């Protein structure tokens, strides 16, 4: 492969990795919303804080998975360079 072709592929991979991390927006908004609601719930009913916190963490983890998929794609593009 020519140098130029490889450079274009590397540049494309880097841009793609950056674009993949846009996936971080969704989980950020979603988790922030979930944590805010959990704070409201604990303020209203402090005795249920254990159950609320537990449920919130599981919900956050599930919401986070799309962001993690984006992160995995970005890491693959940067470090494994699948197209070169």
């Amino acid at each position: 492969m020519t140098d130029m072709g490889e450079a274009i592929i590397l540049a494309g991979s880097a841009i793609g990795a950056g674009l993949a991390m846009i996936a971080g927006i969704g989980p950020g908004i979603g988790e922030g919303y979930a944590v805010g609601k959990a704070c409201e719930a604990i303020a209203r009913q402090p005795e249920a804080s254990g159950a609320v916190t537990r449920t919130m963490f599981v919900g956050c983890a599930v919401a986070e998975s799309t962001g993690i998929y984006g992160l995995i794609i970005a890491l693959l593009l940067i470090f494994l360079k699948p197209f070169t």
Partner: protein
Amino acid sequence: MAIMAIPAFLRGPTDPNVTGPQVITSWKLGPLTINLTETVVLEWIVVAVILGLACFLTRNLKVRGVSKRQAVAEMAVETITKLVRDTMGRRWLWFTPYIASVFCFSIFGSLISLFGVRAVTSDFSVLLSWAAVTFLIITWTKIRYGGIGGYLKGFADPMPVMLPINILSEVATPAAMALRHFGNIAGGGIIMMLVYYGLANASHMIGLDIAVFDVGIPAVLSLYFDLFSDFMQAFIFIMLTMVFVSNAGPAEDEASAS
């Protein structure tokens, strides 16, 4: 003045390299190649550590005059039992040992990265095998409570058109669990590696051959990526296992009646 050769260890990482676990040896078994990887050896170490800890904590238990060691062991068992009872209900209490062992394995397998080796859990095959066990337990629970006919009928639940979606969601459950844990630990490890590399480069740039910035500064990030993230992911993995398995069975009400 004679310049001493500086060992590579003190220079810090000079190029970022991201590889899978190293293969130590491999055997040929007919068409199969069995690799003994770094991960497997580290898993043996983790198993030995957990075994040693369990033996140490439970040695000569007493009813009266409880020692500190026994108090720690009792607290750990009580905490995890309470968690399982609250999340899954009383009839799933027999499930506690499995949950506890997955939790311990995950915690120690992630925290082993504090000693400068690869975390066991940053190898995807480890997480995939744990998630496969969860998948088998879910399937077994569904068959146990609904019979094999009920299990197969569950795939066409609201209407037969949903069949491909149901199959997909059945497979996606363990895959998402494994990917989440793997992505968090492996991603955290890569970010920490980049931080070490960047700080080593920064200290080379100001003319020091020894990576002085690598001392202490990364510990702040390590607190999140190594300690908090490891505990969180282990906790989330067992939480999701418990939720999925207990949802595979029938609702709680007949359990509370018995």
